[in-house]
Each structure stands twice: as C-alpha cells, then as structure tokens.
C-alpha cells in the first residue's frame, strides 16, 4: 500500500495545487449555511469538467457553483446566450465585479476550434491524515478493528478521448482500510466520459441524482434553506468522489442529446447499511457495527426525458425503485417538471407520483422587479406515504410530510445593502397520536447585509414556532474586516432564545497570508455556552477536513492551521484543533468515550495537481 501511495505521489509531482480559499471566503460571507464538504466536491468536479459557456444547455450549470449572485448569473447567462464567445475574458465587459469573475474563472471555458477539450491532461491528488488524543475507549480497549487514524486519498485524472478517472478511498478513525471478509473500506472508482456529439455523458461508479425540485431525488450538493429563492435544477446525474457513505447511487448513467432534448438513463445497485433502519453514520469500527454493513440490497433504474425550448423546460422521469428495506419491494416513481420564463416572471413546478397513489408537489413563482428586487411564492405538499429517502426539497418538519405556503422577498437597496425576508407557514401531513394531530407552525427568517470591499456585516434573525412546542428565536451577527491586504478577521455571535433561556457562542477567526501567498495561517477561537440547543461552529477553511461541529454544553474550542504552497504543483497543510469542555469530566459515551474533558485533533494533508 505504501508503494502505491509513493507511486501516486511521484507520478503527480509536477502539478499545481488547487486552492478554493477565494470561493470559500465568498460563501462564508454570503451565507455560511451554504458551506459544507460537498460544495468542495462540486468545485473539484467542475475544475475537471469545466462549463462550456457557448453551450446553452450547459451554461446554466454555473448556478451549481454557488459563486455568483442572481444578478451576476442573469447577466452572464443572457450575454452568453446572445452571442458565441471567443474567450472567457469577454465577460469583463459586463457590469460584474472582477472579483466575481475570478471566483468562477477556473470552472468555465470556451472551446478552441478544432481542438478537443481533453487535449490537456489534468490530474490532481490529495492525501490526508487525521488523528486525535487522548484516544477513544474503543481504541484503548481494542474494540476498534482498525487504527485510530483517519486517512483519505483522492485522485482524479483525465484520460484520452473525453474520458476521465477518479479514485476516492477513505477510512474513518477506528476502521480498517481493508475488511478481512468484506473488501476495501469506502472506496470509489469512477469513470466518466464527456462528449460533444449525441452522447454527452457516461458515468460509471458513484454518482448523484437530482431530479426537478428534488421531491424524490436530490443527492447532489444542494442548500436546504429557505433563502434559496431561485433553485433551478441543472444536471440530472453527476459523478461524485465525495466520501459520503449514504445519499448516493452506484452503477451507470448516460446522457444523450438530440437537438433540444436530453435523454438520461441511469441504473444503480448497491448494498445499504443498517438493520431495522438505514444506518447513515458510515461508521464500521467494531464487530457489532460491522454487522450493519451492506446488509440490504437497493436497486434503481430510471429514465428521464427533458426538453428545452427557448425559455421553457419540460421533463418527465420514470424510476423503478427496489429496496429490501421496504415491504413493498418495487415502487414506480414518476416526476413531472416544468419551468417557464416570461419576461421577469419565472414559474417552475414539480409533481411526483408513487404507484399512482401517493403524490407530492412543489409549485413556485418568482417575480423580479428591476435588477434589485425578487419576490418568490411557493406552495408545497407531500403525502405521508411517499418515498422519502433521497429527497432534497426544503421542509420544516424533518420528514418533509407537510403542506406549506412560503413567500420570500429580497431587495438590494444599493451595491452595499441587501435585505431578505422569508415567511413559511406549514402544517404536518403525518398524523400524531396526541393532539394536535396535525400540528401547524410558522417560520420567519430575515437578513440584513452590508458588504463593502473592506467590511462585511450581517444581522440575521430566525423565528420558529410549532404548535404545542416551544418557540425558538435565533440571532446571528457576523462582522468581517480586511485588516490589511494579508490579514482578514471576522467574528460571529450566535444567540438562541428558547423559553427564558439564552444560549450563545462567540467566535473569532483570523486569517493571515504571506506576501507571495505561499503561506497561510488561520486561527480560530470560540467559546460556547448552551444546554439543549446545539450551536454551529466552523473553523477556517482547511482543505479536506470537515471543519465544522455542532457544539452542545459549555466550553471552548481553538483551531490553528498552517498551509504552504511548496512549489507550483504541491501544497501541504497541518491543523491542530482543541476542544475543552467545562461541564463534563469525560467526552462521549461507550467506545467513543474519551477519559478527559479536553481533546486535541491533528490533521495533515498533501495536495497536488497539474
């Protein structure tokens, strides 16, 4: 195995390390909820498979990057649809800040005539290790089968004639890299074909499915928050090299395009984890946990037809889903999706059917007024027996079985001030044994944002109330300042008010980069004070590490990272994170228990790219 790693390292030593700091900082400032590990996977994908700005059906995938505002997206889209570009630098003539174009520059391209898009060979690799001290009981008692180190290897390369290859291999702390009887732990090998002819795409391996508004399937990166006013589905199937151990499909998918019509077919076969319910933890460290691994078969086969005509899109998908988890083994699922643009009004809606019995719908109308205001109304409903495993539509009840009306308003007062306000009224469709049998509730969310080149300020308020339950008020304050060309500082305050209790956390992040931008040091400190409600903490971006936690209790957490660009192809980083708890003597329970109220985590990585 060591030899294999060494070969990979040597083969790719002449590469440029990709850095998503610029993109990460943008998302952090605009909406922190958009940040998660999957968005990096999306960016990685589009680095490898950039978006052709001259292809009108590919163009709208820029939205998937989440790196532009609605206005910037519309400007670029309408500009590219009106003419064939010769260079991506023509976008500089638009009324878009140069910083926004820099964010998407690596993900877009204009094909050079008579030159195949895969002429330049691209390869990238990543290797990361993570371990913590003191060690968990599972390691100390030898209950864990594997070593107490988390390791992660990822490799992508383009091959000849439009093909590319991806490998992802990850093991969690306590898991082995290879199970004696069950093979490799969480390994993915993907083969992707991208073409210019009728056959546009072939995927073999692990992939995501996103259909319509995501009422049935939406496993790709998507933001499930109600500020996501204007979601437009982009690709139906997309290869993924994410380490996720649930919420994906495995098999083959292909896409053909004949004039304005896309035809997608996909088939998946995989073994899900769990016994009585699906195990989504992805942790198989002990013999008991291993009994849950790959226990139930899941099969899926589907077809999707999609037609674009001017500003209209219609699609139908038919899927046969089969899982040993359910009594009804085969389900026939259908999705009908339509979207229509009429001047400044956009309608989109999805209606789904399960075996012609159960249904769900999401109907949405967006109205933009000038370039500065956007109004959105949405109705959604989902019957209580509908297939529920891979949906991604926004919902207020965790199971999604609800009927709701949602309306949102967004206004840019000027280039610096932005205001957003959202109301959501919902009623459960799943009967409860106690009164109220169908609880109702409502939510309010509002944002006030001020952004200048040097400073950013956000004040956010959320309110949620469900019948016969306590209401919750949440305030969030974010302030960021560029102290100099090389130093950025921000602070975040979270306040949660539940009954008469106030839970809070105060965090500061500090980012430094050297003059030549080869060295980066990030520091973060957070003090949290909660009881029942958890508070979300996110350390500065550190490539390859899931740097976020839900923290409950009283304590503080400190994170320090150092990242260095060794040469034009190689980048390395190390991070140390400590958590101290003040309200407990030990952390965790059972095998996960650490016999101390403090723990330290170390992470290191090496990244390369050509």
């Amino acid at each position: 195995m060591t030899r294999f790693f060494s070969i990979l390292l040597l083969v790719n030593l002449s590469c440029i390390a990709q850095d998503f700091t610029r993109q990460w900082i943008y998302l952090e400032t605009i909406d922190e909820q958009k940040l998660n590990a999957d968005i990096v996977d999306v960016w990685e994908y589009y680095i490898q498979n950039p978006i052709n700005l001259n292809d009108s059906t590919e163009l709208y995938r820029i939205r998937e990057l989440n790196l532009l505002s609605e206005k910037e997206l519309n400007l670029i889209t309408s500009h590219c649809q009106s003419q064939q570009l010769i260079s991506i630098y023509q976008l500089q003539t638009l009324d878009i800040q140069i910083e926004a174009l820099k964010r998407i520059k690596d993900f877009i391209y204009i094909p050079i005539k008579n030159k195949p898009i895969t002429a330049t060979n691209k390869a990238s690799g990543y290797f990361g290790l993570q371990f913590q001290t003191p060690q968990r009981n599972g390691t100390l008692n030898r209950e864990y089968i594997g070593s107490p180190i988390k390791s992660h290897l990822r490799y992508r390369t383009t091959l000849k004639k439009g093909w590319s290859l991806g490998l992802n291999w990850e093991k969690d702390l306590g898991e082995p890299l290879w199970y004696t009887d069950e093979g490799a732990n969480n390994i993915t090998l993907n083969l992707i074909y991208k073409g210019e002819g009728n056959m546009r795409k072939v995927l073999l391996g692990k992939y995501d499915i996103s259909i319509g508004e995501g009422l049935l399937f939406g496993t790709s990166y998507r933001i499930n928050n109600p500020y996501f006013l204007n979601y437009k589905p982009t690709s139906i199937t997309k290869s993924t090299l994410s380490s996720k151990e649930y919420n994906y499909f495995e098999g083959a998918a292909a896409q053909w395009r004949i004039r304005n019509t896309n035809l997608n077919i996909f088939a998946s076969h995989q073994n899900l984890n769990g016994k009585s319910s699906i195990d989504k933890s992805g942790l198989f460290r002990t013999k008991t946990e291993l009994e849950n691994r790959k226990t139930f078969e899941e099969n899926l086969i589907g077809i999707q037809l999609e037609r674009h005509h001017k500003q209209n899109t219609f699609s139908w998908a038919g899927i046969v889903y089969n899982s040993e988890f359910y009594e009804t083994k085969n389900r026939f699922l259908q999705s009908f999706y339509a979207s229509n643009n009429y001047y400044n009004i956009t309608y989109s809606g999805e209606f789904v059917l399960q075996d012609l019995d159960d249904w769900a719908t999401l109907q949405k109308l967006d109205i933009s007024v000038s370039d500065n205001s956007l109004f959105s109304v949405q109705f959604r409903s989902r019957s209580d027996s509908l297939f529920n495993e891979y949906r991604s539509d926004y919902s207020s009840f965790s199971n999604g079985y609800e009927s709701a009306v949602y309306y949102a308003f967004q206004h840019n007062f000027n280039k610096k001030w932005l205001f957003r306000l959202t109301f959501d009224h919902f009623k459960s469709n799943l009967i409860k044994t106690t009164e109220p049998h169908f609880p109702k509730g409502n939510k309010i969310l509002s944002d006030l944002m001020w952004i200048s080149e040097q400073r950013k300020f956000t004040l956010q308020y959320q309110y949620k109330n469900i019948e016969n339950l306590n209401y919750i008020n949440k305030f969030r304050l974010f302030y960021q300042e560029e102290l100099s060309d090389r130093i950025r500082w921000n602070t975040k305050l979270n306040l949660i008010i539940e009954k008469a209790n106030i839970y809070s956390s105060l965090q500061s992040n500090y980012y430094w980069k050297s003059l030549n931008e080869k060295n980066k040091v990030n520091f973060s400190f957070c003090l949290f004070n909660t009881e029942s409600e958890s508070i979300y903490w996110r350390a500065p971006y550190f490539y390859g590490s899931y740097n976020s936690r839900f923290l409950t209790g009283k304590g503080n957490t400190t994170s320090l990272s150092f990242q260095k660009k060794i040469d034009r192809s190689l980048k390395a980083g190390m991070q140390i994170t400590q958590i101290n708890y003040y309200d407990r003597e030990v952390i965790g329970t059972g095998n996960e228990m650490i016999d101390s109220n403090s723990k330290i985590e170390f992470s290191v990585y090496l990244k390369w790219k050509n």
Partner: protein
Amino acid sequence: MMKLIQLTCVLMGLFAHAQNTENLLKTHFNPTHLQGFETNIVYSRVTIFNREFGLHDSKIASIFKLQDRPFQVAYQQYGYEHFKESKYSISTVQNLNSKMNLGVNLNFHHLGITDSENLKALSFDIGYSYKSEKYEIRLFLENPLNSKYIENDLESRFIVSGEYYWNSNLFSGLQLEESIHTGFKASHQFGYSYKDYLSLSILQSIHPLEYGFRVAYKKERVQLYSQYQILTWTNSTGFALIYQLAND
C-alpha cells in the same frame, strides 16, 4: 466565585489624551492595553459592592519598561472577610507591526475560604489588538486552557471589543463577551473628554440590563476616577487613583 467579578464588568473608553489610563481600570485586563505607555505608572482601584459585608474588588498595579518592553505587575483581590480570591499577574505586550499588538497575562490565583483548604492555580490570558486611525479592535482570551483550582472553578472568557473615535473628544465602544460561568453579555459606552483634564463616560450593558457613569479628573501626574453602577444584583461604587512617575 470569580463570576461575581464579571458582573462589575464595565466598558471603559480609551481617551487618547489620557494615555489610555482608563483602560487600566477594566476588570478583565487585556495586556495589549500596555502598549503606548511611555512613563512608569502606579495605580490602584477599589469597587465596593456591599458595604455591610465588606464585599469589594480591588487592584494595585505598576507599569514599567524593561529593555524597552512594557510590563505590568498587579495584585487583585475579590471577596470579604470569610472569602477572598486573589490574583497575582505579570503582563507584557509585543508589537507585531505598527497596528497590531499581541499580549499575555500570567496569573497566579489563590483562594482562601474560612475553615477550608487554601487553593492555588496558574493560568494565562492572551490579548490581541488592531488599531487604525479611527478605531480599535481587541480580542481577549481569558484562561483558554481551562486552568482550575479543583474542577471548572476558574473563569474562562472570550471578549471581542471595538472602539470608535468620532473626534478627539468623543468616542464610543462596543463589547461582546462570552463567559463560561455567566454566559453572554453585550455592553456599550460613550465617552467625552474636555480639555485633557475632565472626562465623563456613560456605561450601559444591554444584556443583562445594567448602567452607570464614570467621571475622571486629571491634575498634573495624578488622575482620579469615580464610578457608580446599577448592576442586576447590587449597586456598586468605585474609585481609582493613577499616578504617573517622572520619566527619569
């Protein structure tokens, strides 16, 4: 028990004319306040919370320069006859560049309770400041590694504060504080100074709701501060005396 102290936390301003002396009165001393002191200083402050029990918070300290680096040694005591918590501190600050400073406090804590064992602990605090022409930002990490007498009994606190100077006379300040023992506190302050010898500050905490005022008078090398605050659990009266030694 130190948590009682923080209830007296007040946002004190930064008067440019007064060589930052008002910052010396802060309950939670950010070592970056030491930057800018060119003369040696001796100061003392007392805050009385309850005269009947003799409950008070007092501090005596000296600031001096050693090899061109500012230091402070301080002794702080909180409590009454049967309960006394003391802290011996040494503080210093390092200039990172013309705008940024990084400082550290090293503290020795001593807790004495009648008919009970005396307890001791060591802790440290870190301070950071960024100063521009018009404003100043400070971070203060108190006891970040959770030092303790027995178990979780020493305060740990994180303070983010900013001060904005409207002109040479008027400034305002905002402070966000998260404490392990008492939770969140937000407070602000307005300060006005008149001709380098008289100043007035209005202090208010938004959560919990507390308010007060402070007046200061300067005569040559001596500065006198007096303060009155209405806290959630009591009213407090405070005095401070600051004496600047001669340069030579």
